[in-house]
């Protein structure tokens, strides 16, 4: 586990830039805020001793998914949105539902006895994180792993079909 101030630093980084994703009018600024937010999240994963998950978070999200987002934004040539007439009733409704969700979560966490306990210590040598996850993944979860491979193949074929130009 990392020191307490580092936890709050990374949590604050993640939350501030997560809010910036929603607030920014320029899609490019939103996408870059999302990268910083995911870097903070990866640091939080590493603070939980989940090194493998933290590394693939950076590789897959900050590396692949965000490049895809930026590529599409540049391809479509999206500018900062012009101010439109805001539907105040719908906006207030959405904000109220989101706030109600957060109040519920904080109430449940506040009444959850185990949530107040600190994390149990790990033994000095937990072995290799990647090896442990790989062992579980390829023994207990072998069939779901194969199915997820088929899912990625289907997604690839679907993207190719979708991006074809229609020729009638």
């Amino acid at each position: 586990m990392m020191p307490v101030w580092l936890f709050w630093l990374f949590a604050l980084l993640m939350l501030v830039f997560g809010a910036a994703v929603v607030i920014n009018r320029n899609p490019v600024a939103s996408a870059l805020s999302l990268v910083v937010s995911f870097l903070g999240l990866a640091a939080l994963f590493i603070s939980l001793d989940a090194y493998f998950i933290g590394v693939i978070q950076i590789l897959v999200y900050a590396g692949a998914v965000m490049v895809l987002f930026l590529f599409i934004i540049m391809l479509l040539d999206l500018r900062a949105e012009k101010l439109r007439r805001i539907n105040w009733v719908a906006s207030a409704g959405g904000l109220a539902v989101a706030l109600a969700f957060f109040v519920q979560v904080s109430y449940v966490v506040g009444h959850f006895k185990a949530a107040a306990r600190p994390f149990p210590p790990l033994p000095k040598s937990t072995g290799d994180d990647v090896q442990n996850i790989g062992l579980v993944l390829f023994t207990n979860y072998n069939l779901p792993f194969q199915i997820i491979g088929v899912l990625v193949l289907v997604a690839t074929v679907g993207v190719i079909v979708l991006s074809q130009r229609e020729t009638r």
Partner: protein
Amino acid sequence: MVTLGDYLLVSGLLFTMGFAGAMLRRNIIIILMSLELMLNAANLSLVAFSRFRVDQTGLPNYNAQVFVFFIITVAAAEVAVGLAIVVALYRSRQTTHVEDLASLKF
């Protein structure tokens, strides 16, 4: 001392931001980014629970981390397909604003 509750609260706050973004923003690409924020908030709470439930061998519960691995894979596939749909939509309607895309068939 950082507790499990702190991680769960931070995760809930991140989910709330993603949810508010999906409800309030009208740009499809921003809505897709908000979906990513929500998926990652769920991942954070799963990893926190994984670290909290140390089993007999003294290792964290790796089942949750395998689940997070699957969620990241599915999220990557979802973004790829979603952005391809956005490009196809932009090609026929020249907009990514959801209020301009109110009709189901065009």
